[in-house]
């Protein structure tokens, strides 16, 4: 290690002197631009069915399940971790809720939330205290949760047609806005406040930014790491209730690849996979972006291969924009 004094940074062009928040804001503005482009393109390609209030509310409703999960995922990724198990966890949480369905909506909700938190805690314990690498720990949970879902449900979906509250939660409306969308927005707002306006959020980003420095500053790093996976589990529980409500059933085979959708949304929103830089607004926009694309391409009845290529290209473009801003 050289002992030569470090040079002061020479004068650079103004963009790199922007405070951290502004740099992230550029990424978010870029995404708003992308959303605008999609809306305009959709209005032109499918006039009459895309830009209707009915369809837009439909898109919001569809975005809500992965959206809630993505908010939780943002915290996980902010610490430099990752959670590959959220999709399977949704199935497991739904199914456990379903086991209590006969005792009413409240028990269903408690069951689903409880299972989500429980599985999240298992991830959390393995990663924070067991020192297992997040990728591996959550990969293991990915298979375990799916197995649990199939096992507990005996591979059969359970109808929850009678649970009025749960079905309303997923399908109902609040003054004309889908309740699922309201839940998504509420979770987004709470997530934003938590990340940006509380001590906890600051600690989360510190742990992701420089673990050792965070420790020296007195932050209880294992506890913070533990908490984000539990938080993800809670979001999974909420998402499970939403999904089961929409399907009117608790099914063990749902949730396929939700983790990839959530991670993609978080990444194109501007949160760094390496940790230390996170934006809830970006995640929200990322989720909306993908939901809009899926909706538009289905409306156009485009072959699925084209949908997948389009999605991949957007992810690539978003990451390239991110790199340029750094």
């Amino acid at each position, binding site marked *: 290690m050289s002992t030569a004094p470090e040079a002061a940074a020479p004068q650079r062009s103004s963009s790199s002197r922007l405070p951290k928040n502004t740099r992230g804001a550029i990424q978010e503005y870029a995404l708003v631009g992308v959303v605008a482009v999609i809306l305009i393109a959709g209005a032109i390609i499918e006039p009459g069915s895309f830009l209707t209030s009915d*369809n837009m509310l439909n898109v919001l*409703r*569809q975005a809500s399940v992965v959206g809630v999960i993505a908010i939780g995922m943002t915290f996980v990724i902010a610490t430099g971790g990752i959670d590959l198990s959220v999709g399977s966890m949704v199935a497991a949480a739904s199914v456990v809720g379903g086991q209590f369905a006969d005792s009413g909506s409240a028990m269903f909700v408690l069951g689903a939330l409880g299972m989500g938190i429980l599985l999240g805690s298992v991830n959390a314990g393995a990663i924070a205290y067991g020192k297992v690498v997040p990728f591996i720990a959550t990969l293991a949970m990915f298979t375990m949760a799916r197995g649990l879902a199939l096992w507990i449900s005996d*591979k059969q*979906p359970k109808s929850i047609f009678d649970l009025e509250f749960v079905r309303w939660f997923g399908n109902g409306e609040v003054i004309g806005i889908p309740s699922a969308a309201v839940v998504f927005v509420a979770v987004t707002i709470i997530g934003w406040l938590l990340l940006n306006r509380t001590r906890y959020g600051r600690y989360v980003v510190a742990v992701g930014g420089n673990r050792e420095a965070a420790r020296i500053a007195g932050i209880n790093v294992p506890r913070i790491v533990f908490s984000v996976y539990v938080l993800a589990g809670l979001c999974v529980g909420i998402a499970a209730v939403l999904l089961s409500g929409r399907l009117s*059933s608790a*099914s063990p*085979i749902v949730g396929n690849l939700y983790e990839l959708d959530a991670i993609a949304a978080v990444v194109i929103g501007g949160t760094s996979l390496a940790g230390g830089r996170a934006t809830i607004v970006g995640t929200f926009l990322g989720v909306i972006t993908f939901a809009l694309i899926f909706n538009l391409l*289905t*409306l156009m009845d485009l072959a699925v291969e084209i949908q997948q290529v389009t999605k991949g290209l957007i992810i690539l473009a978003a990451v390239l924009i991110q790199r340029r801003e750094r």
Partner: protein
Amino acid sequence: MTIKRFMLPLLLVAALFAVACGSDDDESAGDSEQATQATETTGSPAQGGRVKIAFSAPGADHGWMAAITENARKEAKELGDVDLIAAEGVTDSAAQADQVETLIQQKPDALVLLPNEGDALTPVAQKATAQGIPVVVVDRALEAPGASRTFITGDNYGIGWQAGNYFADQLKCKGNVVEIQGIAGIQVTEERSKGFRDALKRRCPDGGIKIIASQPADFVPDKGLSVMENILQAHKDIDAVYTHDDDMAEGVVSAIENAGREDEMFLTGAGGSKAAMERIEKGGLYRATFLYNPTMSASAIRLARLIVRGEGLAELTEPEVPSQITVPATTVTKENVAELKELGF
């Protein structure tokens, strides 16, 4: 510290050695055995002793596939004289091939196999056959002739065909139809789609029935839900929905019911799940399903046992088990659902 670091690679090398040495012995079996497989049996089970059957199917992340494995196990237990050795289901073709490789090391009397992908599993099936182990393949075909003794499959094309005919009758050759497919690109999906379209073309040559949307929903209900929600936005006049799978159709049904448009159209599924049967019985939106019954794995176990015993199918005059059996795709509607309900998975 140094020893620990080398442990893992050492163990891996040792394991590789063991496998390599194990498989070397079997190379000498040669191909001459293959020609005589149809008539020869393997010793004492033919005299009525216990039959050891190896079973491999892909990992069950889907109700149908889970039922396949479940049915095979149940059948083996019920038969009483069958020892079933099964591998844990995996979702990767290469992994399944490795598992089958391991299974046949245990020298079973027969192998019942549902390959994740036909091409990937063909070499290992050929190997089993070469070693004198008759192979009964279920549902998905292998690529080479002579790689298996008997092939039992459902009729994916037949499902589509029957559905097409059903739609032609119900709609009287006029209407807007939406197709919700399974996983895009796989053989099951392609055949179910092709059969449907061929039947429509034949029954309604003037094109009165239009397929206005065709999107995959990967055989899962949550995707079925989202896809159908979007299609409902795009089209305000739908007469019928053809789905490739009952489990997936549950999501599609939810979307239609949530939108309050169940009176506008009818829907069909495929596979034959219990839930579908119940809906058909109740009547309304869900009008029919087409069997693709996971009981075929149970039948495969029975067939394997017969082959090992050197017996044929009782009702046929031929003395041996046929080399290909296609289980028909029975149409299940309100009329006949009561008798067929017990087959639901």
